[in-house]
């Protein structure tokens, strides 16, 4: 075997290994991006970040648990970039798991210009989040308020009968953000 041939052979080997490793690096770059949908899916399944469930009114069971009462508290926050007033109509309700309830929040645009806002819901404690289902909510879509406009924003929800028995109090909180301009 001549030295030159073995050198060229080695060079080809090196190039092949390098390309393979570059492919691994590229795959890890892709994995970094894949973490985003993965994170969403995991949160959706487990309710880890306090994400609430969404339910179709028609698919709900008709029976409810009359013997059990849990407290649902309502909290409202407004991001500092949004000049709105925002508050729940009632600050807490006693509810039976399995029964559908209505309530609403009040939002008012303090400024002299129309603004689009978006509310992000969260339920605490985390373990209870996926048992809190909304059939109707202003948080499903962006809300636009004209200058100085005030509006009632309805929420219709049901607490699932599967709610773990140790949970006595649930807190539903909304944070209103200014919707991204081009989003």
């Amino acid at each position, binding site marked *: *075997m*001549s*030295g030159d041939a073995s050198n060229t052979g*080695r060079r080809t*080997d*090196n*190039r092949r*290994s*390098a390309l393979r*490793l*570059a492919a*691994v*690096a*590229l795959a*890890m*770059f892709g*994995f*970094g*991006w894949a*973490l*985003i949908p993965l*994170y969403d899916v995991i*949160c959706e399944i*487990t309710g*880890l*970040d*306090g994400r609430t469930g969404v339910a179709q009114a028609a698919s709900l069971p008709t029976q409810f648990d009359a013997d059990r009462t849990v407290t649902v508290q309502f909290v409202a926050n407004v*991001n500092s*970039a949004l000049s709105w007033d925002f508050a729940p109509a009632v600050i807490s309700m006693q509810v039976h798991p399995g029964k559908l309830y209505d309530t609403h929040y009040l939002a008012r645009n303090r400024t002299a210009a129309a603004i689009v806002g*978006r509310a*992000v819901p969260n339920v605490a404690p*985390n*373990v209870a989040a996926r048992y809190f289902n909304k059939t109707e909510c202003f948080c499903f879509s962006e809300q636009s308020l004209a200058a100085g406009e005030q509006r009632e924003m309805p929420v219709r929800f049901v607490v699932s009968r599967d709610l773990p028995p140790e949970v006595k109090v649930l807190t539903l909180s909304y*944070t209103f*953000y*200014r*919707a*991204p*301009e*081009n*989003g």
Partner: protein
Amino acid sequence: MSSHTAHDEHHAHDDHHHGPEPGLMRWVYTTNHKDIGTLYMLFALLMFFVGGALAMGIRAELFQPGIQILEPELFNQFTTMHALIMVFGAVMPAWVGFANWQIPIMIGAPDMALPRMNNWSFWILPFAFTMLGMTFFIPGGAPAAGWTMYPPLVLQGGWNLAFMVFAVHLMGMSSIMGAINVIVTILNMRAPGMTLLRMPLFIWTWLITAFLLIAAMPVLAGAVTMLLTDRFFGTSFFNAAGGGDPVMFQHVFWFFGHPEVYIMILPAFGVVSQIIPTFARKPLFGYESMVYATASIAFLSFIVWAHHMFTVGMPLTGELFFMFTTMLIAVPTGVKVFNWVATMWRGAMTFETPMLFALAFVILFTIGGFSGLMLAIAPVDFQYHDTYFVVAHFHYVLVPGAVFALFAGAYYWLPKWTGHMYDEKLGQWHFWLSTISVNVLFFPQHFLGLAGMPRRIPDYAVQFADWNRISSLGGFAFGLSQLIFVYVVYKAIKGGEKATDRVWEGAHGLEWTLSSPPPYHSFNTPPKVTEAEAHS
């Protein structure tokens, strides 16, 4: 291949390359692993002093309560830039420099496997850091949201975000190319007889580090790209208003961030595993267990990331999982510390500067490991989170940890690199001053953190004044002591007592069979590696 043809080939080769090209362009065009190693190390040393100067500014501001010399905005820029420069500009390039110099001469290869890419991966760095450093002079100043770049804060700064993101991209590309080169060199270029389990531990730890780099750096590149599009192109990855989640950034960042700490420390384990046997004049105790321990640390590093974010509101099962996996890392790390101590047991030890730095590494890194264990206890972390206790912890593992190992390795191989013995007396001065001052600098920060002083603040309550003053004094002393190192290196490059080939009486390994300094092209004819020379 007969020895005759090997000899001929050697000659033919020498006709083409007599040595380095004359002049400055040698350094720009060089594809020689020794030149590139030198460039990396000098660049890292420069960055060490730039990052160090920022640290001096930080400690000067914290010398007493109140705002004296750094306005809060500038203070935050200093802390952010200090970290970015030290992590990506000093420690990581320094280790790549070591890899470039040492890997070929330790495995008996003529050069790195991909010399041209090697040139690229170095020369990207000065551009990256110029771009990053420039941000001090643009409107809005340098990045100031911490090196962890958490949104939403990081998205509220000025244009510096774009500069930082592109700089991180370049650094990432540089280290990925460096890592690919290391892996290909180690896997394809070993001399005959240099089997995987005969490789010196420095080679093993770098091989594993390179895999960590390839797996972790691209994830960081992805995360910072998302920051960029969130800030400038209207996406909402981390923007709650658009349906994103800022906590998600922390998950992605620390998925990179925890392996990153091992990227900085595994080569340190390797260097210390070379030095302790040399000066204990005994073979390394538990060679194979060292290899397996390194590999398990690398694996575990990918499943512990959320210990940096216990307070974000994780469910109990998550806290427990990350707490226990984190504590599990103490097992392979403990194996290593045990092996180092067992290597020294009944050894005929001498205490030259490299050994002193290696010993200090073992003790002080272990202290950093212990405070890490304390931080790993999830319920306790709620108290320590974002306090100076965390600052003390990671500075212990990075300064008397990684940086001391870099000094140890530099003193150990400096005679080989330059051909001259360094000034041992000055080396000892450098060691003792550094070791005393680094403890005065960082140990009090444990107390500050336990007492509740938050990190990343330019001003603090008066009850923290005493320990901060002591810490600052230690900081200034540590900073000044490092000038000794520069002088020692300068002196050894200029001249001095000629180093022998073996340099150290107890040294084993291929690099010591070469002359000091080694020829510009070494091991054009692969050496034969025997068990006796490999395991020492």
